[in-house]
């Protein structure tokens, strides 16, 4: 799972608000310009972000892994024409769905770059800036708790699987394997959530903590100008 990795790259140094704005713009452009040309431009942008943030391509693409079965299935299902019998494969019908699936991968990659370069507290500060008041605080706290919890739960489930493998779970039937790891993983998840709650309580988790200062620098200006030019270019072509 993609987590924040401390670093000194230019993307690490960008203001989280800039990164969120860029992410939202890329998502909007990917949906508005789901054309080969538009997606080539956005792919170039996504690849540049991955390189500049010092994130490996393997990890960036792994961010989309949970959605990959659906993204692959969508064009396949679209290509099957069931209006006649036997059903026919119509490759041309899959083009639109393939482009739609591909744009989602680009959005996942950009999100992976954000997660890799932005500490949770900065995200919390950015969300509170975008959504002022109690709603913003609640939203920011929720995001912060989710992003603190998910990696540890995932690591716990990984440990459950390793422990089961070490005790030859592969000799069990598939159904039994799913049952054992599923129930153990669920139990561990609840235990972990309890322990994390305790740790957050012990360390005085607050609604209004001191959040990092958000500083909009020259690099943020350049990034915003660049994304605006990219958007205008895509609108023109």
């Amino acid at each position, binding site marked *: 799972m993609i987590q924040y990795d401390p670093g000194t790259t230019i993307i690490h140094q960008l203001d989280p608000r800039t990164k969120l704005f860029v992410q939202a713009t890329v998502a909007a452009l990917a949906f508005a310009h789901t054309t080969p040309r538009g997606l080539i431009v956005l792919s170039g942008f996504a690849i540049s972000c991955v390189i500049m943030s010092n994130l490996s391509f393997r990890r960036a693409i792994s961010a989309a892994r949970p959605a990959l079965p659906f993204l692959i299935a969508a064009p396949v299902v679209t290509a099957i024409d069931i209006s006649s019998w036997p059903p026919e494969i119509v490759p041309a019908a899959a083009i639109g769905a393939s482009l739609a699936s591909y744009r989602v991968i680009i959005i996942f990659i950009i999100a992976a770059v954000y997660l890799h370069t932005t*500490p949770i507290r900065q995200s919390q500060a950015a969300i509170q800036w975008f959504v002022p008041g109690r709603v913003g605080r609640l939203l920011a706290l929720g995001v912060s708790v989710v992003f603190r919890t998910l990696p540890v739960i995932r690591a716990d489930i990984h440990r459950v699987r390793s422990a089961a493998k070490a005790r030859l779970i592969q000799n069990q039937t598939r159904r039994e394997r799913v049952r054992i790891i599923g129930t153990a993983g669920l139990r561990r998840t609840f235990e972990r959530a309890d322990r994390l709650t*305790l740790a957050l309580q012990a360390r005085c988790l607050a609604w209004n903590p001191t959040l990092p200062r958000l500083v909009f620098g020259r690099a943020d200006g350049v990034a915003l100008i660049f994304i605006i030019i990219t958007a205008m270019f895509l609108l023109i072509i």
Partner: protein
Amino acid sequence: MIETIALQHSYDETTVIDGISLTIDDGEWVVIIGANGSGKTTLVRHFNGLCTPDSGSVIINGTPVSANLLAARTAVGMVFQTPRDQFVAATVEADVAFGPENLGLSHADIETRVSDALATVGLSECRHARTSELSGGERARVAIAGVLAMRPDHIVLDEPFAGLDLSARASIQDRLRTLAANGTGLITVTHDLEAVINDVDRIIVIQEGQIAYEGSPTSACQWLSTHSVDIVSPSILS
């Protein structure tokens, strides 16, 4: 000062704390020992309001914990048995800063506290490291730093030596001695009495949710040697 009055706590039908009354002074180093399941961890969790008593009360610096939870948690820091359970951020710096941020301190104060806490545990150079990449001993020290940064009057350490090798254990011992010398009250829950016996002011023995004995290390060892309590190594008693 930490004070408990007739503290009672049960899990379902099982009574784990059975009317404990005790006082721990500021700057005092107390070690709590007892068999597994004797109620040690539950007792210390009451000190900073992580457990709610069935009856009785816990008073921190003159204020009941139930009346001001934040004050209790600021005055009594808790270092958990497994440091990994305590980490809530990806990097050492962010994790140590988490407590002071929640106290709403200024950025300058937070920076000072994080630097001081990391210097105290000897981990200034690991400031930007990922918590997942630390060794067991370093994790234990970061967990202590996370609590130190809140500048508590007392620190509760639940099994601070569990799972550590000899050098990591010695390093934690040194840090605890430094803290005690600086006037921080320490409450150590441990099975490893040997690691702290020469440094502590008082030993409290818990049996079946009650204080079976409390006194100086010398008198506690005498008591332990004359009672059939299999919770410490015979080599310490001799």
